[in-house]
């Protein structure tokens, strides 16, 4: 009896739901704070927490490479970019107007209804699940897929990144004509 309980605690069937609950709370609560926080700087920092929890969810699902990339690109790149933009547009913050617009009171029920609709739809559906073992070498197979059948998407994505970098530099450095 005790041994069975101990085995259950040591196996994944105990820790996996616990880790999922912690990471889900660590995603949803900071996401709500991103939307509701009055300070834009706090919003950006709460987004950082939500994105790191999402990376944890990716690792929990077995996509370790994707979790690492999420931390590298989102937490290392995009959040820093957003923080710079927040600090450069500091003068635009006007405390006398609220951070939320007049849509708040009728968009709340709309969004709530949308959330409840998708929630019930995902619960009603009986998803056909594959009961096969996942492969152990996920990251090498991701690399094979990226440089094999999806090499075109990979190259297009890199060209898009280059174009976005040049375009962002040009747009941000253009002086407005008065």
């Amino acid at each position, binding site marked *: 009896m005790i041994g069975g309980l101990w085995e259950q605690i040591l196996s994944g069937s105990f820790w996996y739901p616990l880790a999922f609950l912690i990471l889900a709370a660590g995603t949803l609560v900071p996401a709500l704070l*991103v939307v509701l926080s009055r300070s834009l700087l706090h919003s950006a920092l709460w987004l950082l927490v939500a994105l790191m929890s999402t990376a944890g969810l990716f690792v929990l699902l077995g996509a370790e490479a994707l979790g690492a990339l999420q931390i590298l690109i989102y937490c290392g790149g995009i959040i820093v970019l957003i923080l710079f933009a927040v600090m450069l547009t500091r003068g635009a913050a006007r405390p006398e107007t609220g951070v939320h617009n007049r849509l708040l009171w009728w968009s709340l029920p709309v969004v709530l209804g949308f959330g409840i609709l998708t929630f019930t739809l995902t619960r009603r559906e009986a998803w056909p699940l594959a009961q096969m073992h996942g492969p152990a070498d996920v990251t090498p197979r991701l690399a094979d897929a990226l440089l094999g059948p*999806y090499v075109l998407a990979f190259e297009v994505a890199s060209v898009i990144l280059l174009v*976005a970098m040049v375009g962002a530099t040009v747009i941000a450095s253009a002086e407005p004509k008065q």
Partner: protein
Amino acid sequence: MTPVPPIPIQAFLCLSACLLAIGLLGVLVRRNAIAVLLGIELMLNAANINFVTFWRYGGAQHMEGQVFALIVITIAAAEAAIALAIILNVYRRFRTVNVDQINLMKG
């Protein structure tokens, strides 16, 4: 790796549905253009969670789910760079980043 994670797939799907709704709320109600961008990032993350969930629960034999998620992350990075450059330019011209005050093209 365990055959299939010991929790139902609906847990992940409900999480991503809630995250999408929260991001949509952020896009709809915030005044600041940068905050609207934060809401869009939340929605993209909800989509990514769905991609990886279906990849994992679909047996993890094909890598499409992860490739899609990776491309989405890349596009999100490009989109954030362009959007923030545009927001900086708008701020220099109008001295505001409130999306309901930038209504020059309103009829």
